[in-house]
């Protein structure tokens, strides 16, 4: 939450209520329609996002089966297309950090990153070498290390071996079985998450009806806070980890291996991340909510709110252009990646300032990120 700091401080009002019976309302803040935003984010972003991810993982499972079980022609190419679709679908919904995706370590099981010590590649290599039967069964695989059952592990299996290296039929078959188990595991998780968000008594019910008997959200503002944090931390992760990490521009000045770099899909994932954050902001209803809530200076608020989506579009365009570069963090494209950080940072600080100005969120230094 670091980038929110000066903005929150500048807007903070010393609101000490006497006698313990009331809290002062901050000047200039208009009633923010939390219920409308939670509904819009659900319909416009969360549900469609998980539906796409469920569909893509199912198709990947189908493509791997077609190639491995039925030896259909062009099978390898179809797997790569299906893998790309899963990467894109996941990237667009990855920053939802609340609800069904947080249970059973699903976030890590789908995308364990950063993997600073290369645990995933090592565990996958060991399982391939030992022909561990556990990794051929999706259920048993789901109980193993998070680093060997998600997208990075599948990437290692599909793209990890040196090109042209011949492997025995038996080894290929085992690789196929492992890849298939990961695809089924991903599809199972995607389906569970989608179902929990779509069934009437699932998580969506909790999302839409905050209250004192609700285990997840007491006040209506808490779903807005969850959305705001997902957006803010998502932007932070893309800029400060996904982009800055492989360039060694992190606070620790230690390089982090790019996400899905082995297959040259780092920028595909990042482009999807930025597109997803823009969807959360625009289709998910944040932009309109920020405009609607600011009745004091609607013109200015509208311009600022639209600036956020424009900056995300600019960053997204650059990321898409870099998708064809196999090693984007080296050579001339590295400069373009550094430049990509600026619109992302601007989007983040502008959105934070707007949220602070028009919502009654507990966005305080301690309340928003306690310990």
């Amino acid at each position, binding site marked *: 939450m*670091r980038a929110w*700091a*000066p903005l*929150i*401080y500048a807007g*903070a*009002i*010393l*609101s*000490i*209520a*006497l*006698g*313990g*019976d*009331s*809290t*002062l309302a901050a000047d200039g803040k208009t009633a923010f329609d939390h219920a409308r935003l939670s509904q819009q984010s659900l319909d416009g972003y969360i549900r469609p996002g998980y539906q796409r991810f469920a569909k893509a993982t199912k198709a990947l499972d189908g493509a791997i089966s077609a190639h491995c079980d039925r030896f259909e022609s062009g099978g390898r190419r179809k797997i790569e297309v299906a893998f790309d679709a899963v990467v894109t679908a996941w990237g667009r919904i990855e920053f939802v*950090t*609340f*609800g069904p995706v*947080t*249970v*059973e*370590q699903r*976030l*890590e099981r789908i995308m364990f990153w*950063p*993997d*600073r010590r290369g645990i995933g590649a090592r565990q996958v290599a060991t399982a391939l070498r030992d022909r561990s039967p556990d990794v051929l069964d999706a259920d048993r695989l789901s109980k193993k290390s998070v680093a060997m059952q998600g997208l990075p592990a599948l990437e290692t299996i599909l793209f990890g071996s040196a090109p042209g290296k011949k492997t025995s039929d038996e080894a290929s078959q085992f690789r196929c079985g492992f890849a298939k188990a990961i695809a089924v595991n991903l599809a199972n998780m995607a389906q569970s998450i989608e179902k929990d968000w779509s069934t009437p008594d699932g998580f969506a019910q909790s999302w839409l009806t905050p209250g*004192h*008997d*609700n*285990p*997840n959200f*007491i*006040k209506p503002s808490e779903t807005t806070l969850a959305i705001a944090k997902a957006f803010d931390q998502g932007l932070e992760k893309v800029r400060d980890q996904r982009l800055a990490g492989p360039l060694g521009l992190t606070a620790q000045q230690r390089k982090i291996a790019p996400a899905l770099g082995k297959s040259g899909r780092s920028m595909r994932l990042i482009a999807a991340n930025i597109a997803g954050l823009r969807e959360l902001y625009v289709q998910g209803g944040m932009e309109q909510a920020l405009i609607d809530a600011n009745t004091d200076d609607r013109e200015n608020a509208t311009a600022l709110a639209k600036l956020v989506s424009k900056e995300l579009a600019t960053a997204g365009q650059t990321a898409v252009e870099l998708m064809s570069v196999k090693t984007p963090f080296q050579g001339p494209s590295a400069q373009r990646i550094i430049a990509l950080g600026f619109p992302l940072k601007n989007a983040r600080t502008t959105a934070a300032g707007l949220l602070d100005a028009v919502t009654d969120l*507990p966005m*305080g*230094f*301690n*309340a928003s990120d*306690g*310990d």
Partner: protein
Amino acid sequence: MLAAMVAGAATAVWPPLARANAGPFFAAARRNPDGRYSAAIFSTDGKDVTSVVLPGRGHDVAVCPVSRRCVAFARRPGNFAVVFSADRAEEPIVFTTPDDRHFYGHGVFSPDGRLLYTTENDFEAARGVIGVYDATARFGRIGEFASHGIGPHDLAFLSNPNVLVIANGGLREHPDIGRGRRVLNLDAIETSLVYVDVASGALLEKHVIPAGGSLSLRHLEVGSNDTVVLGAQIVKGVPDGKPLTEGLIYRHRRQQSLAATPLPSDASAALSGYVSSVAVDSEGAVAAATSSKGGAVVMLDVATGKVLRVATMADVSGIARHGHPGDFLLTSGTGAIADVVAAEGRITALGEAACNWDNHAVLLGV
């Protein structure tokens, strides 16, 4: 921690604070307007006696009961601690955990001031440890013992200087995952209160809230008659989790069973499922719990558990005993400093600093 401080203070000769500001003085971590983090010793009008830059966001400050040296700890999953003092007699000392450990933001000096005990995460093994540092030798780490649980957070000495009481939060976290703050065992949180013999590390007593719940015991203080007052947090996202307003304050004495202190509905609603910090007053008779999420302070009688007052203050979190019985100092993420007295329940603004006060505040001395 405060009980130990008081015990030590009786015989200690304290160095004069190096400023003319009127006491009492407090210490806390904070964020500066430029976004950098620091820790400070300050007076109630918000003026610094001294401050020290921190490498990252801090959490609590431990105060040596003998020398009044302060140690500011990184909040989880940070691994630094910075030693500083009011009279600036020595350069700040920075020390860290080993690479395979990180701090949880809290520590306590032994009553004789020679050793510092800290709550730490052995994250590869997913177990809690108490690190032991030698305060007489630039805080070199001389050992560790088990916290007998996962995620030890706050700790304090009882009046018996051999007995350490520890709240194990029960949350499994790893610095590589979700910025070190994602709960990896949502379906099996087991939070506990333990008493440990510091000489041997032996477990004396352990009280567990069984796995499957959504409660995490976090902060504690020791009141009169060695009554431990605990503040809990409800962890969100637990499958089939309970409503957010249950059992947030516990009081416990050794040899008794661990049970939540029942709160009236206005008090439990004010805490909003989340206790940020707890303190006991100068007599150990009144306890207070803050909730930054609820923007509230709940004060209660240590002996009976009866809620005395509920007061509200935006983004309040830091709380420390102040001069008189039932009197507490409050700090807020807005920079505000205030006072509240349990007998009246009235919050009085004392000052405001150009910073965001972090989670905890502690009384240093008069």
